[in-house]
Each structure stands twice: as C-alpha cells, then as structure tokens.
C-alpha cells in the first residue's frame, strides 16, 4: 500500500480531492479503493462541461469484479477528464494518487472542502475497515 499524500482530502467512499495551485480540484480514488476493486477494466468518465454535485455520482469505475460509482467530493463544473483512462484504466491500479486521477472540477463552493476527511482521518478509517 502506498503512502497517503498529506495534501489530499477524502470522502468516506474513498474518493480523494486535491486543490491545485489554480484553485481547481482534481479527483481520483484512493490506493486502498483500487486494491479493494482489483484490476480495473473500464472507466466511464463524466463529460467536460457537465455539472457535478458533492456526494453525487460523477463517474463509474469497473473492475473485473464489480462496477462502482465515483462520487464527486465537491460541486462544480468538470473542466477536464483523464482521457488516458479510456484505453488504460489500469493506470488507476498502478498510480491511484497520481497519474490515475479521474476528473478535474472548477468548484462552486470551496466551503465543501472543509467537510472532507484529511489524510490522517482517512488513514484511520481505512485501518478500522481492515479489522
């Protein structure tokens, strides 16, 4: 299991959010989540320009085993998606916190970020789940 980067914030449902220097929010799923899902074979990306809502489904990742909704940690507009995942969904398995990001949001309410778990809280959540 790779280290959880300290600059990330999390939903309990294992999505991460990273506030970039330009204020946009990058979204992906945690390394723990990709491990639980197993080999990913398909990612249904949101459309660029579409609106997403905090806590609502924005994308779908499918592993050999199951399909899982990906909830957006923040509300706003999707400004970019990770097109590489169309052909290589396994990037999420290989680098969930980095190259395996899923979409980028222009947040409409930055206050929502305060509702998210910080890296320590998330780590604790995952540890408790494992027991």
């Amino acid at each position, binding site marked *: 299991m790779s280290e959880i980067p300290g600059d990330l914030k999390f939903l309990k449902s294992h999505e991460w959010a990273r506030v970039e220097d330009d204020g946009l929010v990058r979204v992906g799923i945690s390394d723990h989540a990709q491990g639980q899902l197993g*080999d990913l*074979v*398909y990612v*249904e990306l949101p459309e660029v320009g579409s609106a997403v809502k905090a806590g609502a489904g924005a994308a779908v990742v*499918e592993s*050999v085993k199951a399909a899982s909704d990906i909830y957006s940690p923040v509300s706003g507009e999707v400004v970019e998606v990770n097109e590489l995942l169309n052909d290589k969904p396994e990037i999420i*398995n290989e680098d969930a916190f980095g190259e395996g990001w899923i979409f980028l949001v222009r947040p409409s309410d930055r206050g929502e970020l305060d509702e998210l778990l910080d890296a320590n809280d998330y780590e604790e959540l995952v540890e408790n789940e494992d027991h």
Partner: protein
Amino acid sequence: MTEKTVLNATHRALGARMVDFGGWDMPINYGSQIEEHHAVRRDAGMFDVSHMTVIDLHGARTREFLRHLLANSVDKLKVHGKALYSCMLNEQGGVVDDLIVYYLGEEFFRLVVNAGTRAKDLAWIEQQAAPFEVQVKERPEFAMIAVQGPNARAKVLGLLHDVDRPRIEKLGKFSAAAAQGPHGMPLFVARTGYTGEDGFEIIVPAEHAVALWEALAAAGVAPAGLGARDTLRLEAGMNLYGQDMDESVLPWEANLGWTIALDEGRAFIGRAALEQQKAAGVPRVMVGLVLDDKGVLRHGQKVLTANGEGEILSGSFAPTLNKAVAFARIPAGEPGDVRVDIRGREVPVRLVKYPFVRDGKPCAGI
C-alpha cells in the same frame, strides 16, 4: 463461522486478497486477477479448490443408485477411473447441483460436488441412497488443487514418481488414476478442469497439500485465485451453479441438454418433468452475449429482445478477449436485436455460440 482450507495460511503468506466464498475464506486473487487468468491461458496456474466436497459411495447397488440419482447416464462409465459430468435434479426437474462422478470400482464411485451446496447435497444424496443400501461418506480429510494451462500437465508429471509418470502422461481426458507425488504422497490425479485448458485436478490428503502446493510453485506453476477461475470458466462456456442454474431452472433452459441421457427404461429423478417440458416446448433459452463496445456485462442486468426481457446470468470482462461476455437467459424464439440495460443505457450486444475461448484462443465468431 467461516471455514478454512488447509492452504489458508499459504494463501495469506502469498499476500492473497481473501473473501468469503460460500462460507469459505478463499483467495480471490494474489495481486492481479487478470495476470493470473493469463498465466493459466498461456502457461500453468493452480487453484486451491479444497472447499469442494468429495463424497465416496460404496455398496453393491451403487451403480443402480446413480442411475436413479443422476440425469446423465452412469452406464457411460465402463473403464476404471473414467469420469462423467452430470446434474442431479429434483422431482420438478430443477437442478439440485452439478457434479463429477468417477468410476473407481463396481461397488465404489466418487462424487465431487460444489462447496456452497454441500449440506443440501449430502442430505439429498443420503435420503435417495437409503433404499439402495449405499454408504455415503464425505471425505473432508482431502484437499484439492487444480493445475491448469497448456504446460500444467508437464509440470505435474515432473513431480510424480518415475513408475507412475508414463501412465499418468497417457491418462485420457475426463479420466483419473492414483499416483505418487513428491515424497511418496498419495495423489488422485484427474484430467479434468474448469478453465477450458488442459490440466489436472488433484485430490491429496490434507496433510500433504501444503507440500504439494510448494512443489508445484517451485515447478513454475503460478497461484491463481477464484476470481481468475471465474473468468476462465466463463470464457470456456462452463456453467456456475447458483448463477447459471439452480432448483428453479430445468437443464433445457441452462444449455445442459447435452448432459441429459434419456436412455430407455431409466427412471431417474426429474425425468418425467424434463420430458413434459420438452414436449410442451422450452420457454427460455440460455445464450452467449458479446459486448463489442466499452463496458462490462454483469449478473442481473436486464436483456431486451423482440420476445421480451431476459437477464444476464454470469457476466464479466473476459481478459483473453479484452471485452465483456456473458451468459443470458432469454425468451425462446427469434430474439431480433438484443440489447442490455447497463445503468439505464440500452447497449447493443451480439448473440453468439459459445465457448468464447478454447485452448488459449478466442473461438471463431467471437
């Protein structure tokens, strides 16, 4: 209480992701399910299938009993060690379980049945066996390792005692024989499997299972989890009990007609119901589906046809084909353009004859 096979600690030491599988704590993968799938298609992989139930039947009337119990004809078994795939049905013709029966002597047959149906199967078999005075004996002291893939047989043969090797090398498909493994351990080696590849399923006394597993690993056989086993058998066109058929499904509706022997004068359980449905017309059929677009077909998804709705039974991404395939049960008759409802989207799929993959290669038309 979850049950554990004798290889449980071995799986954990290999870093396996463990899941509950029909009440058993089993490895779903050891890292990458897809890599394990490819290892079996391209080289050799091994599965712990010790959760499966071995039942030995003894008695002078055992063959007569199996004529009554099984929908396939045990009289096809004439040669020592020969195996037969069959369903056992209830009186309504529904499938109680599917199994393999081995002929080990005129008064000794061995059954291997599913893990998830163990208690129900034992109760059913004991109830049916009583009038035939057949002794029904479960053999929990056995473990089972399936070694599958184009190089699987060669790797197993290399571990056998010299005196046994030529005989086991000549073992025909769907046949079994005893042999000595590493350190003289007694093995029951069957040339059977659930992957569409050649290979052996080996029954071994539990106390030798870890040593056999380690010897196979040293011979270059890759550990593979039940996740890969599921995608391999789906590609190979093999049914999974509980998903593709159960007690509410007649074999005609599960593409198991080839296992039904309507031989003259044999009154097996469920025969009357089977003949009745065949005469009346079978309302549903099981078909193969291929999704050429992106996405994954899954158990429970709705299938739309010209004759009404059906549903996906087994469905998954197929690693050998790099696209999704499925079995579906749909209304009989010309289905027209077939679509599957994936999260509210109607996605067109192709109806195909399966297996989807055989001996490592995609089948024609897939």
